[in-house]
């Protein structure tokens, strides 16, 4: 009999589900690839530079922060890359690359690592980075939009334009629909419109999200209630369709609001969280100063998560005998 030299004494259970934190993060990153690739395809190489800069900024800052804090480097878990990628996908395609890198660094260093790293942050790091950029570079963040290059006979030099939601806010629905030339609804869904790099193709975002749903990495409670909340808030505005498809709502609902760390852990809390974000998004767009509202709505929602987790806890299966449950 061949006896192994050592038998390991280890705590149970001795089996484990295949899903790990790193596998979750890498699935999220992979599922974003189609939407990101589409952004590069329709907006040109400038978009690729923004993505590369944001990812590099996020990963480099996490690595540096781990060094400075004498921690084991955590960049291989894919979460820093995820932050950089998500931030880039919310940025205008013509954002200068160094701004993107700076925004990503802010998100990782201030919103995540200063709070204690993965799992400890209160706010979504990518959106914190975006909010930082909105405050620091307001001009670039509201004007660096590019018109989509249509088809393969693409121009290399990008033409700046305004997003449908910005035009909707300034000039009304008819003008906004003109931004989306041609047959508007298929073009909105497929992503032939000006907008942030990764937000434009609702179809590809839905495809990526479907992968995450199938792998049970995300659930439907948060994204559906975000969409429902926005629909509810904008239904009387005359342009609910454009509000649902014309901005960053889908990217926010499926990829930002579903971030585990900054969203509630139980179904009830998730529905309230999602509805609140959706309603706030609509209110900001209709009555606030910005054409787009999902970023701030999610950040405000993030701040509510500790309270929601207190209010919505799992129901005990068995209460103590004789005690009211």
């Amino acid at each position: 009999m061949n006896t192994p030299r050592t038998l390991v004494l280890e705590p149970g259970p001795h089996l484990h589900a295949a899903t790990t934190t790193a596998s979750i993060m890498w699935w999220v990153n992979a599922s974003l690839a189609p939407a990101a690739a589409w952004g590069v395809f329709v907006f040109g190489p400038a978009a690729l530079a923004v993505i590369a800069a944001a990812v590099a900024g996020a990963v480099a800052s996490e690595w540096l922060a781990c060094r400075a804090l004498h921690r084991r480097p955590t960049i291989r878990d894919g979460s820093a890359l995820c932050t950089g990628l998500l931030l880039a996908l919310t940025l205008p395609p013509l954002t200068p690359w160094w701004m993107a890198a700076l925004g990503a660094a802010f998100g990782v260093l201030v919103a995540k690592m200063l709070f204690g790293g993965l799992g400890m942050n209160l706010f979504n790091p990518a959106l914190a980075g975006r909010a930082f950029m909105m405050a620091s570079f307001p001009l670039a963040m509201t004007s660096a939009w590019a018109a989509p290059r249509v088809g393969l006979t693409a121009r290399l030099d990008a033409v700046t334009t305004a997003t449908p939601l910005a035009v909707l806010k300034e000039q009304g629905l008819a003008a906004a629909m003109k931004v989306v030339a041609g047959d508007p609804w298929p073009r909105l869904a497929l992503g032939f419109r000006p907008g942030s790099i990764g937000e434009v193709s609702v179809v590809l975002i839905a495809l990526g999200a479907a992968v995450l749903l199938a792998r049970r990495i995300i659930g439907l409670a948060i994204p559906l209630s975000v969409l429902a909340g926005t629909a509810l808030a904008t239904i009387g505005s005359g342009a609910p369709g454009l509000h649902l498809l014309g901005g960053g709502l889908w990217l926010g609902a499926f990829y930002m609001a579903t971030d585990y760390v900054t969203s509630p852990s139980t179904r009830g809390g998730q529905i309230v969280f999602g509805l609140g974000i959706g309603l706030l998004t609509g209110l900001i767009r209709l009555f606030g100063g910005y054409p787009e509202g999902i970023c701030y709505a999610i950040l405000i929602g993030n701040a509510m998560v500790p309270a929601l987790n207190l209010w919505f806890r799992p129901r005990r299966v068995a209460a103590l005998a004789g005690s009211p449950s």
Partner: protein
Amino acid sequence: MRAPLLRRFGRGGVHPEPSKQATAWRPIERLPAPHEVRLPLLQHLGEPATPIVQKGDLVRRGQKIAEGGETGVPLHATISGKVKPIERVPHPVHVLAPAIVIVRHGEDAEELEFPEDPEWRSCARDEALARIREAGIVGLGGAAFPTWRKLQLPAGVSVDTLIVNGAECEPYLTADYRTMLSHPADVIEGALIVARIVGARRVLIGIEADKLAAKWWLDVAAHGGAQREMPVEVVPCEIHYPQGAERQLVTALTGRVVPARALPSAVGVLVQNVATAASVYEAVRWRRPLLDRVMTVSGPGIQVPRNLRVPIGTLLGEVVAFCGGMDPDTTRVVAGGPMMGRSLPRLDVPVIKGMNGLVLLKGRGPFEDGFGPCIQCGRCLEACPLGLEPDQVSVRVEAGRPLDTEPYGAIDCYECGSCSYACPSHRPLVQFMQVAKSALRRASELRVAP
């Protein structure tokens, strides 16, 4: 006609790969009597047994060698041979514990004879209990609580349903399944004896859906011959861990919810494992003591996976050798199932009454390489069959505040391991629960003390 829907418990649970193909088709084989057995005086919950034999005594298989005392059960020789000095030997649970060691001696003396009691069906309640106690029977599902104590319900408690637990939800294990296939009549008769003792009016046998062959045999044994005095029904449940946990099986089969920190008898149910029921039958009909343990030896590390009938006290090394030995790259040997079993550092420990399996695993354990921070994904909350909050408990224990975990239910955790299994950050949540639990218990003892 009933709808053939599978039952399951209310919430939570996980789906580990069942991995039962290796042994599910194999009949129970008898391990040849070993040269030596080590019988620890403590193999059950309660006080250790007191030896009634001395060094040098010759004993026969089946002979009583230790008395059970007020709360324990007696112990019997499982091979015939000579008693060696009683000493502390490695124990699978208690590290080192006193045991009666018997070594085969000269010509094999035969097993004691256990003549049938022809009147066994009309055996009185107290007499049946005495035989069960004298046979040294404990819960064979793993907990090893003395069965005679479990069957004596406290005053004011009554039971209308006996549940026989054949769920065997632990991956790899098929010992109970093969017991139901090979000895269906023993299981049914034993269950009816237990039901009579506790005054139950029906018997439900819970199995997981991968054991439907056992349902067929149990149905035949229950209804093929004699008219039974009470309904006996085999109820298939979903394959869903921890379906075989007492609380979860009670809910799946009766819809009743056992209150926290209470026993199933609080809702009129008593649960017995199938192997226990079969032993009860032998004890009452023949006064035959519990001598062998049916166990599954499986996992990627064993050469020939098998279901075995092993004399209690046999060293695990012999059991492994009988199964062709272990692969050199085996890293972990788990006594019991891989979800709730414990890993053993050595093979010179004996098989004890509660050991229903031995699983040999390769590779690194899920909690050997450290763990990451809680990312609040909520998987443990979904996995917990009791609706407890392992995430909240774990971060508080990590922060050195185990006493703040009270609102999150640490005390009620029975350590099924579903939360740890599901945690993507490989956090040892069960162990965090254990730390919290013992801190809370200590604190409440201090409060109660004057």
